[in-house]
């Protein structure tokens, strides 16, 4: 094979076509407030688990919408369901219920 002097890396671009609409709709049925997130970051900033393990509900919701379910679950692995994020969410999302619902819908993957 000709050596072109470079190799091809897998693209770091996210493919929104990978978005799993069916699962997301199922999640939204369980917890409609998932669609209310305005990505303010209050949950991540106040997260008690976030200090030790990268825990971010905001990132998890975004990852789901970007078709990265595995990553989404990773963002919630450290969650201790303490509910502090529920106290700060300016959109009034029941974040604990949302987290549980995400794990229910996507957790087995």
């Amino acid at each position, binding site marked *: 094979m000709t050596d072109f002097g470079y190799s091809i890396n897998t693209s770091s671009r996210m493919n929104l076509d990978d978005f799993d609409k069916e699962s997301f709709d199922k999640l939204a049925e369980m917890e409609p407030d998932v669609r209310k997130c305005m990505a*303010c*970051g209050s949950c*991540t*900033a*106040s997260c008690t688990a976030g200090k030790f393990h990268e825990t*971010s509900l905001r990132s998890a919701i975004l990852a789901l919408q970007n078709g990265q379910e595995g990553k989404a679950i990773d963002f919630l692995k450290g969650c201790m369901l303490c509910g502090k994020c529920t106290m700060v*969410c*300016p959109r009034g999302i029941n974040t604990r219920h949302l987290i549980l619902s995400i794990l229910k819908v996507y957790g087995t993957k």
Partner: protein
Amino acid sequence: MNNNILIVGGGPAGMEAAGMLQRLGYNTMLVERSSKLGGHLAAWDRLFPKGLQAKETLDRLTAGINGVKYFLDTDINSINILDDSFNVILSNGITILAKAVLIATGFDLFKAEKKEEYGYGIYDRVITNADLEAYYKTGKSDTIQNPKSIGFVHCVGSRDEKVGNLSCSKVCCATAVKQACEIKQRFPEAQVYSFYMDLRMFGRYYEDLYLEAQKKYGIRFIRGRVSEVSEKEDKSLLVKAEDTLSSKPIKVSVDLLVLMAGIRPAEAGKRVGRMLHLSNEEDGFFSTKDTIRDLQMSKIPGLFFAGTCTGPKTIPETLNDAKSAAMEIDEYIKQNFPDRK
């Protein structure tokens, strides 16, 4: 036949409308519950986007109401809707029979102490946009002593279900950017952070202001809502947020934290609204007749609105709204009382 018009509220909206109606030939009366005219404008130092002195605008408004009768320190005791006029009793004992009433009751700033996690009223060095403006105006403050780092917190009391207000206050983004630039003018060495969720720099020249804040003043914009603030032993403050663009929780120490308290309907206006059984929207501000064209009209014939009593507005928007209200009133009188003069 009288051609009395009564205006409730002596802020920019009430003053602008009063001046115009007076010049249109009406006998215009203005009621203001505080002891001076000008509303919040009178307490402000400079105005975005170009940094004009608030006083210049206020002086022009004051010159414009020449001939208008106004009552200070006066409340509305009662308003009765008669067939084709309003019978209004003032707290000073005067009764006015008015052909039309203009509600220009404005706004109250959100009470920042309600957002306990930000520590206003608890920590010494947490102040509001209004406190900072007072400092700019007078040059005096016990709190502001050569701060090395300063934080601005957007959306305090706005876009927040926790305080019962989902809506955006519209003017605080531009105010924050303006105030951030001004603090850098006073303390060029200070590091200034602005914690925002969305920067709503919608108006003419606003984007230039934003650019200036970045380029000339090096304001550090951090996209994340502040989640909590705590006070350290030396009275400086530890601010926590997420830098959502880096997807990392962050903390930073500041010597001064400025809360951008939002716009809420004035309590005094609500009181007048109750007398007239006016309805309001979910955001708490009065409902207008429609939401596109009849923004200065209420559902009651002869009763009109101007300014921020129908939702957050910039000063120029408020003045335009007041002009429109004056024109609507003029049209209403001409149509309903053709023989008024």
